[in-house]
């Protein structure tokens, strides 16, 4: 049955990553921010993978999401590319880090773990975006504004906080209705 379990994981990651991409695209259409960053529930499917299938699969899902999402961004003409390290730190690493939400392995049964995992994942993503801002985009801070302040507070905090709150809200609804345990048969 080990084979079945692995196939299940692959199928689940694929579908949930696709859902994350669709969420992101839908949210992007109503985005209030002009230059990148939107209030989007796209992190939620990645968190769910991490909760259901552990950190490793969460990281893989994050990586897949980062790659596809940057392809979609390129297709929609909203892609900011300066160099390969910048691409990694802006588009790949933040989403991979979301997978660390899975460190809380009882997240599907304990509400505190559920909330903590999401907080950790979001915090790591926020830090990564913030550092990308400091390393690659500090010249673009408005004049007279400290670039640490610009990157961590002015640019990255509003949409990250809003996205986190939104994911948490939807996530808790799914949690309360026990939807997240669907098909979660224990490895046998």
């Amino acid at each position, binding site marked *: 049955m080990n084979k079945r379990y692995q196939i299940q994981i692959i199928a689940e990651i694929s579908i949930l990553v*696709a*859902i994350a991409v*669709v969420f992101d695209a*839908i949210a992007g259409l109503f985005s209030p921010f002009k230059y990148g960053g939107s209030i989007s529930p796209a992190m939620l499917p990645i968190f769910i993978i991490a909760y259901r299938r552990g950190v490793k699969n969460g990281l893989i899902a994050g990586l897949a999401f980062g790659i596809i999402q940057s392809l*979609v961004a390129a297709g929609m003409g909203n892609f900011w590319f300066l160099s*390969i390290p910048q691409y990694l730190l802006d588009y790949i690493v933040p989403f991979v880090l979301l997978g660390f939400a899975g460190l809380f392995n009882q997240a599907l049964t304990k509400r505190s773990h559920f909330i903590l995992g999401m907080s950790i994942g979001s915090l790591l993503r926020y830090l990564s975006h913030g550092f990308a801002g400091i390393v690659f985009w500090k010249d673009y801070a408005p004049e007279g504004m400290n670039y640490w302040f610009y990157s961590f507070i002015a640019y990255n905090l509003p949409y990250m906080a809003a996205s986190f709150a*939104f994911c948490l809200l939807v996530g808790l609804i799914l949690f309360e209705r026990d939807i997240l345990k669907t098909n979660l048969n224990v490895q046998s």
Partner: protein
Amino acid sequence: MKNIVIGQFVPGSGFFYKLDPRTKIVSIVFLMVALFLLENITQLLIAFSVSVVLLIIGRLSIIRIIKGLKPIFILLIFTFLFQILFNQEGTLLVNQSMSLSYSSIASIVAITVLWRYLAHFKRFNFLLLLAWIAGIYLILSYFHYGPTFAPFSFKVYEKGVEMSIFVVIRLLIIITLSTVLTITTKPTDLTQGLEKLLRPMKVIGMNSEDFALIISISLRYIPTILDEANKIMLAQASRGADFSEGKLKDKVKQVISLLVPMFIIAFKRSEDLADAMESRNFIPGKPRTRIYELKFNFSDLMTSLFTAACFALSIVLKVI
């Protein structure tokens, strides 16, 4: 709802379309590294003309590449201005004294309003932006009636001009190269190429084949799921949900009425997919067969040689 465009692939039949995706990915990584080794404008201009020649050889439309540059345009202009304004080395080229006055403030406001108004027509946006910058320059330098205050001088140094051109050309080449890759390679081919290139990662426990499979399935299901989201939105709309209006609280409620069913369907669908894969005897981690196998042919060899030559040349130039 608009369709999602994945990647920038445009069907065509130039030289770059026939290349193996692996060759393209590796070459572009090496060419970019080589680009960062270059140190002066002459070398960069040569690199720039080489990339234009590459576009002509590949019979890629330059207009399409320029269109791909659009999102980064503001960035380019900003970089240019930033370098010109703040780099103060080398000889002084322009020293224009400027100051503010009531008449100049009023006319700056006036031309800004005029610029934003004209921008609504969405034509000649770039020329308008240039005209706006030039207008501000002229107003600050010459247009003074009545008392002036806050005098300052606008200085441009030789090094500033040089650096701004340098940085902008380098950005242009980088974007052109990556656009060539994404325009001529299908997302599925890109994944397949990455899969083969990431194979050595197996050492650290990452299975590149499974990963590539995940990406291909995701890419395949995005349109399906988008369709489904559309259907659910219509279904909820027929029950009275309104996704575009209402207070924030109502909006959130309606979006949740979209997200929850999507998750439920997703779990169902992934179970079905797993059944389908299992019944076709898919075994994770085992090699799979493909209809189209990647082939390394003569043009790939030429491209690799060309890349190696560029890379070697830039190292030599750096050392000298």
